């Protein structure tokens, strides 16, 4: 059994983890919960001996009575993979794009067990079968780019458990996946713990995931464990104020905006069709056509907040690009306030719609300062003489101080960046703002504050939102009406409350069932 005892970590004389003790029992799932920056990932990296340069760990990481922190790098190298495996958040970058999945899973076995390639591949095949990638559909010779995000995460899990380690560390293993895939991966992890008797150490910010999976939970705040115990117990009593705050944030629903919905449609999509030509499958074959959006019709009223929900690959992002006027349609029409939307629409028309994107780290040019970034949409309207005052005003609306204007974007946290992105969308006073997974990458507490902010802005400015997400629980808090999309079509639509409580279409049911829920206490 592996156990942390009084583990502390300092980076450049700053203490980031302080006196953490955590037993990781075999056959059990232990969750470590906290906000980003609370030190939970550092704790995991210390346990597996992969701390970044400049970080120092003290205390004990006990394995069979041996303190792993005392071991030299060579000895740790032999233990990693063999006794401890780890999977990471981002399945897109966790695999080597130039190696087949069979070789990647076999690599550790060949190194640690000294197996020959053929033997290691036999074992790799068996492990891939175990994680739900059967030989018939997933031969060993596939490359990572041929797999979806969820399938890649399964490969990463197969790599981590190839040598049946005592401990599997999973750092936000499902945060980058959509809800139905998340539910499948969590099921897989739970099954592995049950069947193979290993310990699973789950690191996450998502309390709902913890409540469904973990036997034990430890809540971490600023590098200290403030509360720990059996999951049901901790969740029921919520003894520490921080635990209560996390729960409150996760359940948070902004005050009803009393939105000024009504007064005719603002956005009207009629029978929209968007097709892509795929690469030729063979030299002289015809290029197949993928119909990503297949005859979608929808309305968004003035001041209305609408959710568009679907699994990844359902076509919702393609539809979003068309609504933003970035791509031309192959059929149907999109009208905004009566006028057509498309790549060639005039600037005044384009100025009616703005967007906020998912990844707060890719949403801004790293070389520009905040004032210039926020002022970019003025390109559509002409930059007014008092543009700096307008930027300051827009930043104030999202509760960012004016001193931010002369700074670069890398100086801000994810939540602050998302506020700045909202300020950029607001500055030219559009009538519709499209939010593409805009809060999915944020911690619960930050997400709750952003949702409050969005509700307030809608009330003040009479804005309409189109909220695109794979996660029904995010949409629940902030939309009046929700549309469910699958395979390029809208399969169900209705008031958010009704859709969530009485889903009719099988896809909607699957989404509702997959969304992890907090226990009602």
């Amino acid at each position, binding site marked *: 059994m592996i156990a942390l005892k009084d583990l502390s970590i300092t980076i450049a004389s700053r203490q980031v983890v302080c006196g953490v003790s955590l037993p990781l029992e075999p056959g059990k799932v232990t969750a470590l919960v906290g906000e980003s920056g609370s030190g939970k990932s550092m704790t995991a990296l210390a346990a597996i001996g992969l701390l970044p*340069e400049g970080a120092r760990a003290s205390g004990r990481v006990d394995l069979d009575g041996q303190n792993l922190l005392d071991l030299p790098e060579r000895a740790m190298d032999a233990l990693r993979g063999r006794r401890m495996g780890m999977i990471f958040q981002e399945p897109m970058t966790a695999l080597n794009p130039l190696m087949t999945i069979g070789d990647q899973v076999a690599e550790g076995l060949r190194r640690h067990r000294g197996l020959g390639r053929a033997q290691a591949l036999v074992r790799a095949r068996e492990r891939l079968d175990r994680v739900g990638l059967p030989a018939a559909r997933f031969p060993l010779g596939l490359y990572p780019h041929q797999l979806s995000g969820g399938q890649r995460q399964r490969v990463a899990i197969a790599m981590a458990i190839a040598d049946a380690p005592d401990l599997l560390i999973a750092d936000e293993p499902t945060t980058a996946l959509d809800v139905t895939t998340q539910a499948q991966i969590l099921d897989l992890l739970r099954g592995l713990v049950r069947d193979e008797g290993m310990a699973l150490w789950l690191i996450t910010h998502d309390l709902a995931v913890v409540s469904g999976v973990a036997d034990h939970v430890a809540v971490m705040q600023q590098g200290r464990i403030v509360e720990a115990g059996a999951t049901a117990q901790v969740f029921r009593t919520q003894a520490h104020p921080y635990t209560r705050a996390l729960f409150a944030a996760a359940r948070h629903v902004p005050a009803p905006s009393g939105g000024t919905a009504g007064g005719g449609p603002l956005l009207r999509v009629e029978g929209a069709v968007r097709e892509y030509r795929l690469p030729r499958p063979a030299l002289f074959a015809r290029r197949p056509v993928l119909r990503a959006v297949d005859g979608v019709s929808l309305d968004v009223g003035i001041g209305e907040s609408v959710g568009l929900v679907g699994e990844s690959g359902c076509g919702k992002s393609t539809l979003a690009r068309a609504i*933003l*006027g*970035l791509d031309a349609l192959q059929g149907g029409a999109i009208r905004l306030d009566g006028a057509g939307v498309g790549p060639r629409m005039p*600037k005044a028309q*384009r*100025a009616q*719609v*703005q*967007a906020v*994107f*998912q*990844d707060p780290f*890719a*949403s*801004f*040019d*790293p*070389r520009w300062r905040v004032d210039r970034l926020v002022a*970019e*949409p*003025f*390109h*559509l309207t002409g930059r007014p003489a008092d543009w700096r005052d307008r930027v300051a005003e827009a930043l104030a609306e999202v509760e960012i101080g004016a001193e931010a204007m002369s700074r*670069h974007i*890398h*100086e801000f946290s994810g939540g602050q960046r998302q506020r700045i*992105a909202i300020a*950029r969308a607001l500055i030219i006073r559009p009538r519709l703002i499209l939010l593409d997974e805009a809060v999915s990458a944020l911690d619960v507490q930050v997400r709750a504050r952003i949702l409050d902010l969005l509700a307030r802005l809608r009330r003040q400015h009479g804005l309409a939102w189109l909220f695109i997400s794979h996660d029904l629980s995010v949409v629940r808090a902030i939309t009046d009406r929700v549309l469910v999309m699958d395979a390029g079509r809208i399969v169900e639509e209705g008031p958010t409350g009704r859709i969530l409580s009485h889903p009719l279409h099988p896809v909607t049911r699957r989404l509702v069932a997959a969304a992890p829920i907090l226990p009602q206490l």
Partner: protein
Amino acid sequence: MIPGRHRMGLVAGAALGAIALAMALVSLVWTPFDVTGVDVANRLLPPGGAHPLGTDHLGRDLLSMVMIGARTSLSVALLAVGIGAAVGVPLGLAAAASRGGWLDEAIMRAGDLVFAFPALVTAILITAALGPSAANAMLAIGIFNIPVFARVTRAGALPLWTLDYIRAAEISGKGPARISAEHILPNVASLLIVQGTIQFALGILAEAGLSYVGLGAQPPTPSWGRMLADAQTMVTLAPHVAVVPGLAIVLTVLGLNLLGDGLRDALDPRLKARLT
């Protein structure tokens, strides 16, 4: 990452580059000796005394020769980089902006065509056709820099085009040309600076090569390559005559490479935050 090491590379590279540049500039107004005359009495003197780097087979002062040679080598290489960047970077930006379109294909295939010929051999062809001179050597080297800059620019720009901040710029009504100039170019500039210094260094080598075979700078203008060519018959007799221009080339090329790496790190605002 150890901050000090980057700073040291930057400082050492800048110093070597500055020395080469200073030699070239000073030679415009002053050299220790006149090199137009022949002084057979003092030929092949070893380094030391009145001639700190010795003299060549005609008794000319090697330090003065290296200083004047720096002028030729640096200006030819620098202008060749200028030609390559001025044409190649816009082509690369245009190719990236039309991702996979016919323009992209046309530009990249044209680049492949240039790459298909061995650079130095074609440069020899061009200078032989247009007449051997420093200006034609510069043009020949410059043409081969164009596809290099086009490729590096395109490779750096392609991943940027998928990022959300480009999407935000498109939503702000900006066209591909403006986005390329405002967002893409500044973000690939660090790559281009590194590539520019490498091409500068390669340009010095190429100029030396062309001058060595007599197709670059013409007598009596000294250049590092011609100095090497002149020295080769005397390598066993007076090795310093070859070592001096050889070292000048090696140190300048090394300095430019160090400078390129250092600049790349210093110009990145994210890295800068970490270094300070």
